[in-house]
Each structure stands twice: as C-alpha cells, then as structure tokens.
C-alpha cells in the first residue's frame, strides 16, 4: 500500500498513552471509530479524559471504556443515553464537565483554527455559566468559553485516499471533521482507503494536512 500514514488498528491505538486527553467523534452510536474503541478497551489504557458528545450506551461504543474503568474525566454534552455515567459521577469515580452541544462544537473548532476563547450567548444566566466571565454584546449577555484541544483525536470517516484526505457518510460526519483539526495526533478509522485522485477534490471534507494516521478494519 502506498499509504505512508497507514497503521494497523493496534499500532494506531498504541499511540494513546495513559492519562491522555482523547477526542472521539460520535453522536450516539453513529459515526464513532468502532475498531479503535474496541482496541482501546482491549488495551486497558487508563486515566483517560474523553472529549465526546456522549458516551454511547452501557457497555457499548464509548460506554465500554467506562464499564472497564479506563476513564478519569469526561468533557461533553449529553450522558443520559448511558446511565452508568451519572452513577460513576455520583460515586466520585469520574469527573464530568457538561457543555452545551453547540458551544462544545465551536470550542473544538476554535482549538482547530487557533482561537483560544470566544463569547457566546448560549447558556448565559444558567447553571452552566457559573464561574464564567460574562459580557454584554449588542445588549445581550454572553459568556466566555475556552477552546477545547486534545492530545489525540480518534475519528471515523467513510473513505480516505492514500494521502489522508477524508470524506464522510451521512450523519456519521457529526463532530469528526472538527475534531480532526483540534488534536496533536489525529487517527482516522475509515471503511476504505482509495488511491490518490479517486476522491473528487470538490467533495473532500477533511484535507489530508489534518490527518496523521489512517487505519481501517481488520479483515
């Protein structure tokens, strides 16, 4: 294969160190890097901070990492699909930082494009604004939100070419393209790797500059 960025699933997941801050693309069980998460669960790597919209379901998807006691902290938006999160939080086994979903997405995008913080009207005056700087813009209270960066992003795309350009599939796109911009090491799990030139340049969503490692399902 003429793909310099290719690694096996196991070699790719070995890049995740204990205690790492990891971003994972997902919305429920749509668009998450299934094989990478399976391998991360098998690896037993611990003390992880997981930055993701939600945590799958109990024992399923990202939920496996919590069931396995590999998580120290969560940063995300919605954990009601996995009730094990509230239990672990109540028992003090993990910490959870809740962020409104649009703010979460923008904070990841901001990290990717070099903006350290931004003001947003979302959540102003609510419990989620406590401790955050507030300023009025156009007569509206806005709160200061900081960019969210990670050591590693584990993302899921539909196809990569051998350079690492990515295209996505339907609503499996979700947070993946922005996470691809916001981590030191970006590992993309794809369904298929195609020769350079096969993807229509007008349709490439993530340019290969953002992608460090490409991996795909084992046969």
């Amino acid at each position, binding site marked *: 294969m003429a793909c310099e960025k290719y690694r096996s699933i196991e070699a790719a997941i070995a890049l995740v160190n204990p205690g790492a801050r990891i971003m994972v693309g997902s919305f429920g069980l749509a668009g998450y890097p299934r094989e990478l998460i399976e391998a991360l669960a098998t690896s037993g790597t611990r003390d992880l901070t997981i930055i993701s919209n939600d945590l799958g379901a109990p024992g399923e998807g990202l939920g496996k990492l919590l069931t396995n006691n590999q998580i120290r902290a969560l940063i995300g*938006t919605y954990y009601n699909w996995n*009730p094990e999160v509230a239990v672990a939080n109540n028992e003090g086994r993990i910490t959870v930082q809740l962020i*409104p*979903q*649009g703010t979460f*997405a923008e904070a990841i995008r901001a990290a990717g494009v070099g903006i350290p913080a931004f003001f947003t009207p979302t959540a102003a005056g609510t419990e989620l604004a406590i401790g955050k700087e507030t300023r009025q813009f156009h007569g509206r209270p806005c709160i200061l939100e900081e960019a969210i960066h990670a050591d590693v992003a584990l993302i899921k795309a539909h196809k990569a070419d051998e350079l690492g350009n990515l295209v996505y599939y339907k*609503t*499996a796109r979700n947070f993946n393209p922005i996470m691809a911009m916001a981590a030191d090491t970006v590992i993309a799990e794809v369904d298929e790797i195609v020769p350079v030139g096969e993807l229509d340049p007008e349709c490439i969503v993530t340019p290969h500059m953002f992608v460090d490692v490409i991996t795909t399902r084992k046969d």
Partner: protein
Amino acid sequence: MQIIPEQQARERIALTIARYFDGRARQGQLFINLGVGIPTMVANYVTSPHIFIQAENGMLGVGCAAPEGHMDHDLINAGRTCVTETPGCSYFDSATSFGMIRGGHVDATVIGAFEVDQHGNIANWIIPNGKQLGVGGAMDLVSGAKQVLIAMQHTSKSGRPKLVKECSLPITGIGEADMVITEYAVFTFDSGRLVLRELSPEITVEELRTITEADFELSQGAALHKT
C-alpha cells in the same frame, strides 16, 4: 372540563404546531428544528413543501422516520431515530450545524419542557435527582433559534401545572419562550406578558386558570379560536 387522553393530547399539540408552520410557510421557506417527543411528531403533520427540517447532529432536509427494513444507523436525527432523506438534503459537521442555529438561520425550534414560567423562562434540561447528566443542544437551540415553541402537555403526569409563575428547576434559557402549545391552549409571549391565543372546546378560561399557575391575559381584539 373534559380530560383529554395523553395520546390524543400529544397528537393535537403536534397538529396545532404543524398547522401554524404550514400557515407561516405560505409566506416563504421555513427552516425548523424539532426536539424529541411531541416536537418530532410535528414532522408527521406538516404538509407544506416549503418547510425544511434541520437536525442538530448535522442534517438539513430530514424526512420521515425510516421504515422497518430500511434503517441506516448512520442516518439518524438528534433523538437517535433512523430517518430518511428528502430531495435536496445535505450533511454538515456539528459546528456548522450549531452555526446555523446560533447564527439565527433556523426560523423556529420546537422543544418540550418540564416548566415554562410567565417570564418566558424555560426549564427543560435537567431534573436534579442525580439520575440525569446532560444538556445536549437545548441551551443552544433556545438561545439561537429565531422563535422558540414549547410543545408540552398542560400539566405534569401528577397533575401539576407546567406553566408556572417562576421556574423551580434549573433553567435552559432566560425569557426565550415565544409560544406555548398545550392540548388545551395556545399562548404567546408579547412584550414579556403571557397571552392566551387559543382555547380548546373541552375547557373554559376559568377552568384553564385552575390548571395554570402562571398569570396570563386574554388576547385583545381577536376572539378565542377553537382548535
């Protein structure tokens, strides 16, 4: 006062909102976002081809729920239901999706609520009982969408008013509610005042006040509609 059974109540609320959107879509295209529960049911009743449904997980042009045997688990709405595409639909990342919402490009959002108070404050993201842990897109939607419609049954399952004087639960947004649609009535917020716009045939205004804690005014200049 005649009790309206739950299923009928939910269908009526969705139908009332769908008719409202169909009416608005006669003036031009309408981009709407539907929350889970009753709001999702609105999609079953809208008829205008000028209404486009946006899902915050990254889709514009959401169709009906996918039929059995045609489900694609990578084609879902924000409630994780498998859906279908409409002609001209598009996909985008979550930052773009919330950019549409925060940027004021989404005309209306329909959401459920635990409580709405007479100041237009909405509580719909958490009941602090230690079992819930999530906000999702609720705060982004109420602060970003141009119009916020609350679709909810008039009282809680235990019979308590959900339209209250002051929200007792943690709020999702301050003064963001524009309309409240229940099985018995339609209210709007006009200059910070809650105004009764429509009343169902099963109830009188006096009876409505007994199941509504919030103070409300009667709309002036127009007779009350019957749904």
